[in-house]
């Protein structure tokens, strides 16, 4: 039987706390599968049922951007174009026709009520909106839009150094804009985010229905301007979570201006900085728990990047582009508008023949009203360099032609110009905005740069800046980004494979196949269709969001508002339809509750269950019939005596459905008492090794039981600690306790222990022993603890009855034992010959039998029964003698005060020391007198001393009469020259040694020589009494 015992000493306290049960056992054979629901499993389980609490929702998101050039009056226009969708020029924005050539806007086809360009420009004032009157609005707006996102640039003059170096943004301009937008929004829209960085301003409004579903709003700024950090350039950014599911990022930027190559590179750098340095706060997930990490751009589901990106048309002489485009814008003024300053300017410029590098009839070709069939071919740029040269072919329009292929159409012009768009080329060559960003089809004029106040007059200032699509709105879905990443990985793989094959030299052998892997981004990039600019895909697919929902984003409109006159940039906007799964909070709360309840139930039902069976034992070893609690549910040890071992067994069975790990844990006991898993008088043994066999012995022992498995636990009670015996005797302590058996992840079982202490004479003081009534110490059994009892009893005996009875029995038994040996024993091997200390040591009986017999002796003492009755009849005199003799020694040792108390001993030693110093010796007789005289201060002690020494002298006389030489009667082989020695002195010395130790109590040990001398004195005090020739000595 493998046995592991639980430490009964106060064990490590760390395990004493419920809920802190030692974790999974070290042996992995039986991992505990108990269900423990945690936050994670709860939220996972809730998430799995998301279909039940999400509702697919559709909203329109409008993103607008405008560089307002810090011009006052621009705020008067924002409501008109951004909220109401006004100011789109029908003819200059590809609005008039859809792909199928059908009119696009309801009722707008040539709506005659719209204010003319001429009148619009004429009445322009900084105090009023420049938006054309009676414009019904082409781009959806008003309450059709769920989310309005507006990015403005240059709301303050960023060319001012003072502004650029400001440590904070001036909030006043922002307020002005918020007010302007809020006034034009329908009722109920709420501002959900805003961020300003000097001239950059981002503000987001949501409808009353959407606003409450927006959470985890985080906004931030990144400056990339002066020194790479100033806010005159850079971005303001917002991240929101829509419907608790959909993460959206909005970036409003203003990148470095300029047409030089360095400017282009700086723009790319600006963009990369914005990407890198934008960091949002962590998202609070569905329930409000903050995620571990903050996010950057790229972690969202949908991103929108807009603003004045400042990319230009590359390798295009600005004046040529201006003229070409003004061929289109001139038409806006119509017949009546010809007197308009803008119109005149345009006509003037177009009239300068020297500046035109294309033939005259081109003009006519671009008037849609005319029907000129002649073709025009313009060369733009340096024709001698084919790599930068490109040509624009403008053909006269034909009625039958689709505008997209109609060489004279606006769309054709735009397409040819767009081929030179820096942004598109940077995207293609993966220098910027290449990782999944898309843009809608540009079917509007470059948004920059116009004369303020004019619909179609491109920068007529000295600089005559080349028109460009500086202002853009890009977007990207999570899937776009992931697809891009995948593509890069695939390419990388292909390249690697290719290189490997080259290294292996197989490339020649498989030339044909190797082509598949032969990828060079420099040369192949532009041709690779995947590398093309991601334009609006016609039919966006649903994609999986970061949170695992299915969303879809499609672009509906991407328009500039050509007829907004208040800035040198035209504003533009894009309208998206977003289909997303939004969480219904009420439903989710309900599901959450349901899931929590289910998990709790599973957890509680899945807890390990054990059954504890206490093997009740009928008392056989006592007359005890205490029936005070017949249904005592714990372990009852019955009667417990001094130094008597009792065991009980308890079975722990796993009656549950999951493995159970069990162990006794440290009981928390009131202060002043030892803790540990069990009281000091109890040992716990399992019938199998613990799970953690190898751990340190102080560790708590756990046992894992499979369902249907059981373990037997043996509880061994043993009281041999004299302190405890005394406390039990004084009834200040009882043999009652509670073990706590903990089931890991389950409940605690209390296992009460009970033992009925039987009074014992052992461990008491002489003063108490002489008060024991007739009938023995057990008479005290049912008395109240201490106080009254013993005093009342009074002194009953001159010396403890126990001492008297034991010494008397020894005297009696020694004669019988010797006689017995004489008749049956081996004369040559008498125990007293083998050990001169016998019968007080050198016993014939082995320990176990002695222990048993000593118990009978003690029982005889404590219940005051004659030993002749308590000993089983088959026990012979010699055995009885040994048992009684040893009991006497132990009894004397157990006495609380000793027969010669510490005080008595000090007095004796003092006298002896004085004589030693004075070199005086007493005769043996005088010395005995002196000793007894000294002890007589404590009569009961003195009498006990006399009993013992008298008995010893008697026993000595029996086993070694004075006339018997030591070796007498020994084997023939003993050499004759060995003089026979007297045996008696050696016996005396042995007895004196044993009994001096048993009877005399010493003060705290002195050491070395002192101790040795003291020991000699002690032995002497006993031995001197053994030398007396007793009258019955012969």
């Amino acid at each position: 039987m493998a046995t592991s015992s639980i430490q009964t000493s106060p064990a490590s306290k760390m395990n004493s706390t419920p809920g802190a049960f030692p974790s999974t056992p070290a042996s992995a054979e039986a991992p505990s599968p108990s269900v423990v629901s945690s936050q994670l499993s709860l939220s996972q389980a809730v998430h799995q049922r998301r279909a039940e609490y999400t509702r697919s929702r559709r909203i329109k998101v409008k993103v607008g951007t405008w560089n307002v050039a810090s011009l006052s009056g621009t705020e008067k226009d924002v409501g008109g174009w951004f909220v109401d969708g006004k100011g789109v020029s029908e003819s200059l924005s590809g609005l008039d026709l859809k792909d199928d050539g059908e009119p696009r806007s309801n009722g707008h086809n040539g709506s005659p009520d719209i204010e003319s360009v001429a009148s619009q420009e004429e009445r322009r004032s900084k105090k009023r909106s420049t938006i054309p009157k009676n414009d019904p609005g082409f781009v959806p707006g008003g309450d059709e839009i769920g989310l309005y996102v507006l990015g403005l640039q240059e709301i303050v003059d960023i060319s001012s150094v003072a502004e650029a170096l400001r440590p904070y943004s001036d909030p006043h301009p922002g307020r002005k804009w918020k007010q302007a937008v809020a006034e034009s929004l329908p009722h109920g829209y709420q501002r959900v985010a805003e961020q300003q960085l000097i001239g950059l301003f981002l503000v987001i409004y949501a409808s009353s229905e959407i606003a409450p579903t927006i959470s985890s709003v985080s906004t931030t700024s990144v400056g990339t301007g002066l020194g790479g950090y100033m806010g005159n350039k850079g971005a303001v950014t917002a991240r929101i979570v829509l419907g608790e599911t959909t993460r959206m990022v909005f970036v409003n930027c203003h990148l470095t201006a300029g047409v030089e190559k360095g400017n282009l590179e700086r723009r790319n750098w600006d963009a990369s900085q914005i990407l890198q340095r934008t960091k949002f706060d962590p998202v609070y997930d569905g329930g409000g728990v903050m995620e571990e990490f903050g996010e950057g751009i790229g972690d969202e589901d949908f991103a929108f990047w807009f603003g004045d990106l400042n990319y230009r048309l590359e390798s295009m002489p600005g004046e040529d582009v201006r003229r070409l485009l003004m061929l289109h814008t001139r038409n806006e003024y119509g017949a009546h508008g010809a007197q308009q300053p803008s119109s005149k300017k345009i006509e003037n410029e177009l009239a300068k023949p020297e500046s035109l590098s294309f033939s005259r009839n081109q003009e006519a070709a671009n008037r849609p009203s005319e029907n000129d069939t002649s073709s025009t071919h313009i060369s733009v740029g340096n024709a001698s360099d084919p790599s930068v040269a490109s040509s624009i072919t403008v053909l006269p329009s034909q009625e039958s032609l689709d505008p997209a292929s109609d060489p004279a159409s606006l769309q054709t012009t735009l397409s040819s110009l767009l081929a030179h768009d820096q942004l598109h080329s940077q995207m293609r060559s993966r220098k910027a905005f290449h990782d999944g960003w898309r843009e809608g089809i540009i079917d509007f004029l470059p948004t920059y740069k116009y004369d303020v106040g004019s619909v179609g007059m491109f920068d007529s200032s000295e600089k005559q800046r080349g028109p460009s699509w500086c202002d853009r709105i890009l977007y990207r879905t999570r899937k776009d980004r992931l697809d891009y990443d995948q593509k890069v990985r695939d390419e990388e793989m292909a390249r690697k494979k290719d290189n490997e094959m080259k290294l292996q030299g197989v490339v020649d052998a498989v030339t044909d196949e190797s082509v598949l892997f032969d990828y060079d981004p420099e040369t192949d990039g532009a041709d690779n269709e995947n590398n093309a600019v991601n334009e609006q895909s016609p039919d966006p697919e649903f994609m999986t969001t970061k949170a695992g929902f299915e969303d879809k984003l499609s672009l509906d409109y991407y328009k500039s508002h050509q007829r907004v006159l208040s800035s040198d940039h035209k504003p533009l906007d894009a309208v998206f339809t977003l289909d997303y799964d939004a969480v219904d909070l009420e439903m989710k709360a309900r599901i959450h509750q349901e899931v929590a309840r289910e998990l709790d139930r599973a957890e509680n039902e899945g807890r390990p269950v054990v059954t504890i069976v206490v093997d009740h034992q009928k008392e056989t070893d006592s007359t005890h019939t205490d029936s005070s609690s017949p249904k005592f549910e714990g372990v009852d040890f019955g009667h417990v005596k001094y130094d008597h071992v009792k065991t009980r067994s308890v079975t722990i069975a796993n009656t549950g459905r999951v493995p159970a790990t069990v162990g006794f844990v440290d009981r928390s006991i009131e202060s002043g008492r030892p803790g540990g898993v069990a009281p000091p008088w109890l040992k716990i043994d399992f019938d199998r090794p613990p799970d953690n066999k190898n751990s340190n012995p102080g560790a708590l022992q756990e046992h894992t039981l499979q369902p249907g498995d059981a373990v037997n636990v043996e509880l061994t009670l043993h009281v041999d600690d004299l302190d405890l015996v005394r406390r039990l005797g004084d009834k200040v302590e009882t043999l009652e306790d509670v073990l706590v058996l903990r089931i890991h992840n389950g409940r605690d079982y209390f296992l009460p222990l009970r033992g009925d202490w039987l009074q014992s004479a052992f461990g008491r003081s002489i003063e108490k022993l002489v008060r024991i009534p007739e009938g023995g110490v057990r008479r005290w059994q049912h008395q109240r603890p201490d106080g009254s009892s013993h005093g009342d009893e009074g002194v009953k005996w001159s010396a403890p009855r126990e001492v008297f009875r034991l010494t008397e029995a020894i005297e009696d038994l020694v004669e019988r034992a010797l006689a017995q040996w004489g008749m049956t024993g081996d004369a040559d091997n008498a125990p007293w010959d083998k050990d001169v200390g016998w019968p007080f040591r050198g016993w014939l009986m082995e320990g176990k039998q002695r222990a048993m017999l000593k118990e009978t002796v003690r029982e005889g003492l404590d219940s005051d029964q004659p030993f002749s009755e308590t000993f089983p009849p088959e026990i012979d005199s010699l055995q009885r003698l040994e048992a009684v003799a040893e009991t006497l020694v132990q009894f004397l040792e157990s006495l609380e005060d000793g027969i010669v108390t510490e005080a008595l001993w000090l007095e004796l030693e003092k006298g002896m020391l004085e004589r030693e110093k004075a070199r005086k010796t007493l005769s043996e007789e005088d010395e005995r007198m002196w000793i007894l005289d000294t002890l007589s201060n404590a009569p009961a002690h003195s009498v006990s001393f006399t009993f013992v020494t008298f008995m010893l002298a008697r026993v000595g006389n029996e086993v070694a009469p004075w006339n018997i030489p030591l070796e007498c009667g020994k084997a023939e082989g003993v050499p004759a020259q060995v003089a026979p020695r007297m045996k008696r002195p050696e016996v005396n010395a042995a007895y004196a040694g044993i009994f001096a130790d048993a009877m005399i109590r010493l003060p705290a040990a002195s050491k070395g020589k002192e101790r040795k001398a003291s020991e000699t004195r002690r032995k002497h005090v006993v031995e001197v009494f053994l030398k007396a020739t007793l009258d019955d000595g012969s």
Partner: protein
Amino acid sequence: MSSRVSTGARPGARFAQFKLVLLGESAVGKSSLVLRFVKDQFDDYRESTIGAAFLTQTISLDDATTVKFEIWDTAGQERYKSLAPMYYRNANCAVVVYDITQASSLDKAKSWVKELQRQANENIIIALAGNKSDLVAEHPDKRAITTADAEAYAREAGLLFFETSAKTAENVRELFTAIARKLPLEQAGNRGMRANPRQGVDLRPEAPGTQGGGACNC
């Protein structure tokens, strides 16, 4: 035990775990209250608890806050009194139960409260539950302790107070919910909670306060 913080991006809930211990004289209905709270059941005859029953129950305070109780239902017998510190030592909250039809049970409850206030966690939330209110509904003369007296005591000692019935479920959920609301959610970080200071623009300035109401009767 590693802290139970949600990792990754999976949506979950604001989640806090607390240890709750039930104390009180034997037979006042501690186990019955737990049974009602956890399983929504009631047994007329219940075996007395020998040891400490362990159960868990999760409640949602609002859509954003979930509180999971680890409940230790202790044996009320005098014999096991010395073991009680094991259970209340690390408890975040305690429900001290008495039987409103047994005057002596309130004395016992008061002594538990005293012990808790002396020995337990300094910030422990203690609720006093006067159980078996159903009994006095039918027979008002059975009442041994008036609501006013108990309420006055609870107020003085700084306890939450409810008169409950495990039998009819009256105030049982309210009792535990009130405790959950009073628990310091912000400080539960070690058990997997973080505060939720909504940043940026407050979207719901007028949102009805689900947190503030409180069901504390005292």
